[in-house]
Structures are given as structure tokens and as C-alpha cells.
């Protein structure tokens, strides 16, 4: 194990900005992409419901 403590781990040997900047951006973009997928699917479904006059339920 390389790390003596949690602070040690977070400090990344002085490279915290670079290492966590990389991993943080990756996590952020993955979350954004998953949310965008959800939104796109909901929008497509709503569009279909409207086009077909199917019950729109609570979306109204």
C-alpha cells in the first residue's frame, strides 16, 4: 500500500490538482452524459405520446 493516510492519498504526492483534475473531469462528463441520455429518452417518449394521443398521465 502506497498511502499512509487519507490525507496522503488526497495529496497525491503534491500532484493532487493534476490527478484529481483528471479523474474529476472524467466523473463529471460521465454523469453529464448519463443525464443527457435520460433527458433525450424522456423527450422522445413524450413526443411519441403526444403524437399518438396516448394517455399522458401526470406529465400534463
Amino acid at each position, binding site marked *: 500500500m502506497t498511502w499512509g493516510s487519507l490525507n496522503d492519498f488526497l495529496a*497525491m504526492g503534491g500532484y493532487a490538482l*493534476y490527478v484529481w483534475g483528471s479523474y474529476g*473531469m472524467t466523473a463529471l*462528463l*460521465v454523469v453529464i452524459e448519463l443525464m443527457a*441520455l435520460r433527458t433525450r429518452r424522456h423527450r422522445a417518449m413524450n413526443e*411519441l405520446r403526444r403524437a*399518438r394521443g396516448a*394517455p399522458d398521465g401526470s406529465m400534463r
Partner: protein
Amino acid sequence: MLNSIHPLGGDPANAGARSSWFKYASPQTFYPLAGSLAPWFAWAAAILMLGGLYVGFFVAPTDQQQGESYRIIFIHVPAAWMSMFLYVVMACWAGIGLAFNTRLSGMMASAIAPTGALFTFLALWTGSLWGKPTWGTWWVWDARLTSELILLFLYFGFMALQAAIDDPRRADRAGAVLALVGVVNVPIIYFSVQWWNTLHQGASVSLIRAPTMAATMLTGMLLMALAFWMYSIAVTLLRVRSVILERERRADWIGQYVERAA
């Protein structure tokens, strides 16, 4: 009804045994298939990513020259691989669509593009954050970095072009031409470190040489690469389902999949 105009879009039951694999080229068959496959790839991605992060942060040792800054490699290299690989896959789908006029191919190409752009941006972003402590600069106009930036613009160009054309089939064809022309950039990225004298280092992993890095570092990197690969498949499958819903909105078969509002 609309989808029976196209020979490959008709009822899969009518397809002959000889061309039975063609039935997966129909959005009608692929929509539920993609829906049932996506969770498996998503779980595989999550598990591989946990394993890769564990190996990358807790098993792989500190690098003697670069200290802990090298741990960016576990994202940087897999992201760069995916950025090139996804482009080639996207161009293949686009090319198939252009050659055989199959609707699903164009949908797959447009479903891949955003994720390809994401990994290209991540390769550039993490490379920049790695370059600062190791080279002393965030950015340099060397062949590797410049050609990777061009890849990002190719993804953006592909998406912008498709978005700008109202008729999806015409958008597919225009996008396909752009995607296929842009393919020449991929070998340029890959071989740039050999062809030109770049600040960027050469490949650390090669099929013809023994790896120059510690086995645990390599393991972490490969786990992350597999994770990104599975993630890309899962996300592409989910996105292509939305593309199908958007484009096939007037097809009869889609009625059974219209969900009641939650």
C-alpha cells in the same frame, strides 16, 4: 408501414434464412435487443472500473521518475484509445450505411459520435493536466496533440452536420462522407509519435514489444480500457434507442414501446 418500404426494414419473419442476420439491421428488431443488452455492458463497465481504480490507486506503485502524477495514465491512455477506436467504428457504420442504405447503420454512427467526442476531450484534458507537471506546459502544438485536437473537431463537425440537415437519411449520407474522409486522421494520430519528433512520448504498450511499464500499472490501464469499452457500448446502445424512437416515430411497431408517463 413506413418501414416496410425498405427491404431491410420489413417484417423480420419474412426474411429468408440465408439473410437472417440482416434482421438485426432493422431498427424494429434492434430496439428491444439493445434494451436488453445495455444493462449487461453497464454492469461490466462498473465492475471493471472499480477493479481498474483499485489497481490504479492501491496496487500500482509510485513511479520513480514522475511520482504520483503518472496515475493520470489510467484515464489518459484508455480515453485516447477509445477516442480513435470509436471513430473507426463510427466511420465503419457510416460507410455500411452509405454502401447498403441500411437505416440502422446511420443511427449507430450518430449514437457513437457524442461518446467518441467525450473520450477525445478527456484524452486532451488529462493530457494537458499531465503535461503541465511533466513537460512544464499545458499545451504544445506537436503532431500527436494537434492531430488529436483535429479528431475532436471531426466529431463535432459530424454532429453539427447531422444536426443541420432535417432529413435524417440525407444527414446520414452527408455525415458518412465526412466520417470516412476523416478516417485518415486516425493513423496519423497513432503513428505521429514515430513519424515526427514529438514532445509526446512513444507508445508505452505495443503488440510487438514487451511492455516498458510495471505489470500492475499495465493491469490497471487495461482494466480501465476494458471498462471504457464496455461503457461506450452500453451508452451507445442506450442512445441508439432514443435515436430509433425519434426517427421511427411514425412506424406502427413502435406503439407497443410507448411507455405511460411515470
